[in-house]
């Protein structure tokens, strides 16, 4: 028996990237714009999505949703009453449930979605500020929801996520007057990790920023 060294030099996530590209090909073929929506749990992804739907419907844009959760279908149930195609992806497959969606999980959900009836597909990722940033799923853009209740330092603690975002929705700004939250400091931290990234001050509760959010999605659709 002897030992041989084998040089590999391969990105360990190549398998995921390959499937992500296959997803992307399917999306492009059907002219679907895909947004990967990410945040910590409870930041407001589902509510911001609900708020955007009316505005997008008025513009004649058809939205579909892939809903990723560790378990349960609470968010999918919320959205399905709005008469849009929603597919639930549960990641609980043995080891307590995956904390993110990967390209293969998204691919498994595509079979149930009629892509030719969808203009914008929103993939609502599992609430988590680390893992979803690692795994491309074939998206055109990454939107991150951040709630002002999370603290100013989060971009510095989770740079991988904040750096990968094309848009940051700064949600729950209606609470600012009740919080010791320094918005300027947060924006400084955001610019330190992702200089000049597009951002919208939003409140799903009061409606602030919702027009901008809708316009952004429309522009991405192009």
């Amino acid at each position: 028996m002897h030992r041989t060294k084998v040089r590999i030099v391969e990105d360990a996530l190549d398998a995921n990237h390959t499937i992500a590209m296959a997803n992307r090909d399917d999306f492009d073929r059907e002219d679907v714009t895909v947004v990967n929506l990410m945040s910590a749990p409870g930041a407001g992804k589902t509510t911001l999505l609900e708020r955007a739907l009316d505005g997008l419907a008025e513009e004649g844009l058809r939205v579909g949703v892939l809903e990723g959760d560790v378990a349960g279908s609470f968010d999918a149930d919320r959205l399905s009453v709005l008469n849009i195609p929603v597919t639930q992806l549960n990641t609980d497959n043995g080891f307590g449930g995956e904390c993110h969606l990967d390209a293969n999980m998204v691919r498994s959900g595509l079979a149930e979605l009629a892509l030719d009836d969808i203009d914008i597909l929103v993939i609502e990722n599992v609430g988590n500020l680390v893992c979803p940033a690692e795994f491309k799923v074939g998206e055109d853009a990454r939107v991150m929801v951040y709630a002002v209740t999370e603290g100013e330092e989060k971009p510095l603690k989770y740079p991988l996520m904040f750096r990968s975002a094309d848009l940051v929705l700064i949600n729950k700004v209606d609470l600012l007057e009740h919080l010791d939250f320094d918005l300027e400091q947060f924006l400084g931290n955001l610019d330190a990790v992702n200089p000049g990234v597009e951002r919208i001050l939003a409140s799903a509760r009061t409606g602030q920023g919702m027009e901008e959010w809708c316009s952004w999605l429309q522009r991405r659709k192009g």
Partner: protein
Amino acid sequence: MHEFDLSSAIVATVKKHAGERKVTHVTLRIGRLRQVVKDTLEFYVAIVGKDTVVEGATLQIIDVPAVLRCKTCKNEWEIEIPAFICPSCGPGAVEVATGEEFMVESIEVEDEESAACTAPR
């Protein structure tokens, strides 16, 4: 906890290249921007690799520093904290030169002596 899935990706990549051969050592090259906790990664590789050719393999992780490059002045510098701003030109076109790697660099496998001798040269 992304280390668990990253471990699965590593073990899958190693198994693909090792085939039936037993793996004794794995060398990884991981950039500092990946936010990987080494001890956790090692712990999970051992779990995910159990009952496979990877079981018992030692793991070596080569740390790749986070180096940024300014597209304007072409300067390169290493960062210790997440600050993607050029010290001379300020915020603007900064790109990552190194630090985002997540590579399986090499593996060491056990070959049957006879198989090694008859292998095509």
